[in-house]
C-alpha cells in the first residue's frame, strides 16, 4: 500500500496554507499601518448660564422648565470639547463619521457642539411643537432657515472650515457650535474626559482641543503604526 500523499493534493494543501498565511500577514500589515491617540481632557468647573427659559424673554412660560431643571439636563462640560488633528495627508484618509444632525428639542440645540468634516451637509431638525428659527451670522457660514414646523429637515452644507455659532431667533437662550474641520480625525471626550482616536496614519501631527470658553496650547503628537500615543489637555 502506498502512503505517500498524492502530488496534486499536496499542492492544494500548500496553496491553502500560503493563502492563509498571506491573509494573516495582510492583517498584521493593516494593523501595523495605523496608530491610536488616547488621552484625557480636563476643563475647569463651569456652569453654563441657566437662564429662565422664556421665548423672547417675556414669552410663553407654558411647558417651560425651571433653571435648575435645565441645568440638570446638560451633559458634563468636558463632552463639549473637540479634540482634532491637523497635518498633511489626513484629508485624504476616509473615516466613517456619524450623520450630522442638529436637533432642536425642549428649546435646546442637541448636540451643543457638532464637529463635522468640511463639505458635510447638516440636517437641522425641529423636534419641538413650537417654532424655532435657526440662524447663524458667523463669517464661516451665514444662514437663516426660517421658521420650520415639527419634523421638517432643512439641509445646510458647510464648505468652509471654521467655527459657526448657531442661534434661534425666537429663543434667545439657545445656542450651538458647528465646528467645521479640514479632516475627519476629530473626537469629543467621554463624560469622564477620556478620548481615543484610532485609525490615525503614522506621522507627526498637531493636536488641538477646542472649547467655546476655555483653551489649551496645541501639542505635537507622533503616531506610530500599531502603537498608542498619549496626549492630555488641561484647558484653562
Amino acid at each position: 500500500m502506498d502512503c505517500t500523499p498524492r502530488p496534486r493534493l499536496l499542492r492544494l494543501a500548500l496553496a491553502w496554507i500560503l493563502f492563509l498565511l498571506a491573509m494573516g500577514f495582510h492583517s498584521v500589515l493593516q494593523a501595523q499601518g495605523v496608530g491610536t491617540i488616547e488621552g484625557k481632557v480636563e476643563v475647569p468647573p463651569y456652569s453654563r448660564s441657566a437662564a429662565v427659559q422664556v421665548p423672547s424673554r417675556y414669552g410663553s412660560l407654558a411647558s417651560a422648565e425651571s433653571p435648575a431643571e435645565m441645568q440638570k439636563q446638560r451633559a458634563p462640560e468636558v463632552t463639549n470639547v473637540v479634540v482634532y488633528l491637523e497635518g498633511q495627508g489626513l484629508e485624504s484618509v476616509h473615516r466613517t463619521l456619524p450623520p450630522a444632525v442638529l436637533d432642536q428639542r425642549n428649546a435646546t440645540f442637541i448636540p451643543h457642539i457638532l464637529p463635522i468634516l468640511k463639505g458635510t451637509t447638516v440636517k437641522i431638525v425641529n423636534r419641538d411643537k413650537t417654532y424655532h428659527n435657526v440662524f447663524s451670522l458667523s463669517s464661516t457660514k451665514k444662514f437663516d432657515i426660517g421658521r420650520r414646523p415639527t419634523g421638517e429637515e432643512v439641509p445646510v452644507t458647510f464648505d468652509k472650515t471654521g467655527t459657526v455659532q448657531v442661534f434661534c431667533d425666537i429663543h434667545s437662550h439657545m445656542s450651538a457650535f458647528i465646528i467645521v474641520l479640514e479632516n475627519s480625525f476629530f473626537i469629543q471626550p467621554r463624560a469622564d474626559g477620556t478620548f481615543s482616536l484610532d485609525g490615525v496614519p503614522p506621522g507627526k501631527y498637531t493636536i488641538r482641543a477646542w472649547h467655546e470658553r476655555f483653551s489649551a496650547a496645541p501639542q505635537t503628537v507622533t503616531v506610530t503604526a500599531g502603537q498608542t500615543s498619549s496626549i492630555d489637555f488641561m484647558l484653562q
Partner: protein
Amino acid sequence: MFGTVDLRIQCVFRAQPPHWRVLIHLSSTTLSGFNLAHETLNYRTMPFRLQQIQSVNRMNLHRVLLATLLLCSPLVVHAQISWSGIYDFEIKKGGTGSSLGWNQLPNDYIQLNVQNLQLFVDASIDDGISLSAKIATNRQTASDPRYLDLELANVTFWHLAGNALNISAGKILTPFGAFTRRQLSPDNPLIGQPLFFYYQTNVSPQTGYLDAAAAAYAQSSYGGMLSTIYNGGYYVGADAFGSFANDLIEYNIALMNSPLSSPNTSINLDKDLAFHGRVAVHPAIWGTLGFSYCTGSFLEHNSVNSFYDALGGLGSFKQNTAGIDVTLSYLFYEINAEYIHNDYDAPYVVYDTSGYGWYRSGLPGNGSLTLSSDEVLVDVKIDLPFYPGLYVAGRYNTLSFGKIIDPYYLSSTYGQSISWDDDVQKYALGVGYKPAHGVLIKVGYEWTTIDVTPRPNLDVVAAQVSVSF
C-alpha cells in the same frame, strides 16, 4: 468658606408722603463672629425713582466687598445667578408737535439718547424655584440715568402640577395681550411703542373724565392722563400660569394691585384686587389665538376725590379691558395682530373756581361716564433669507374713541354727542439688521394722523442700536 456674608433688606412704608424706605445692610463676619466690615444704605423710593438718602453705619462699601471675597474663597454658591441686560441707544427727530404722549419724544430737536438700560437677574434657588428681577432706567426720564425702576421682582414656583400650574408672585408683567411680551427692543421689530402704551387719553387717575379745559392742566392739577396700559404693564400681584392638552391651551391669570392703566403708586389695597387674564390656543405651530380680559378700579385716592369716601368710595369706577390677539408665522413671515376694547366707568370731577372746591358733576345715574375706546395693532415682519440678519417691518396702529354726551357746560357742544378724545392712526415702516447675535440695528419712520388728518408735526424718524448681553 471662612465666614458668612449677611445681606438683609428691610422695607418700611411711610404714609406721609407715601413712599417706601429701603434699608440694605451688608456685612461680612468671620466664623468666630468678628465683623470685618459692614455697610447700611438707606434709600427712599418715590414713583419711578430710587433715591439714596444716606449711608449709615458706614465702614466703606468696598471693604465689605473685599471682606466678602476673602471670607467666601473658595466661593460656595447656593443659588445660581445669571445676569443679562438690554441697552438701547437712539437717535430721533420728530416734528414740532412731537411729545412723549404720541411719539415718546419730548421736543422737536434731534435726540441722542441712551433710551433704555435694563438689567435682568435670574436666580435658580432650588429645584422648581427661581427668582427674576429687572431694574431699568425710567422710560419717561430716559435721558436721566439717576432714575431707576424696579420693573420686575418676582419668585416663581415651577411645575406645582406638572405643566398645568406654575405660580409667580411679586412685581410681574401683566398677562394681558400679546404685545406686552414683545415690547423689549430685541423683540419689537420697530422702534416706537403702540398707542395703548403711551397715548395719553382724556382720563385722569384722580378725577375721571377730563373735559377740554381740564385736559390742558392734566399734568399739573389732575394727576396726569392715562394710557390704556401703563408704562409697559408691570404690576404687583400673583400670577398662575400653565398649559393643558399637550400645550394646546395655555392660560395665565393674575390678581394684581391695579388694572392696566393705573400707575399703582399706592401699595395699600384700598380698592378691590384687579383681575388680569389671558387664555391662548395653539391650534397649529404657525398660529396662536389669545383672549384677554382685565378689570379693576382705576382711580387713585387723592384730596381732589376724597369726598367720594362718603359716597361709597372709588371702587365702583372700573376699567374693563378685553382683547384678542393673533399670531401667524411661517418660514420668513410673521404677522401679529391685536384688538383691544377698553371701557372706563369714570366719574366727572370738576373744580369750582368760585371756591366750592372739587365736586362731582351732576351726571345722571350713578354720576359716571362710560368712556370706550377700540385699538387695533397689526405688525408685519419679513426676514430676508438671501441676507441673513436683515428684515423689513411695518405697523398699523389705530385708536378710536366712543361717544359721550358732552358734560362740560362751557363747551359749545354741551349736551351733544361727542367723541371723548381724538381718534389716532399711526403708521410705521422700518428695517432691521443683526450684525451679530445680540446686536440689532433698526431704522424707522413713523407718521401719524389725528381723526384721519395727516399731522406731519408728529412724524418721527429714528435709528436705534439695541444690544442684548
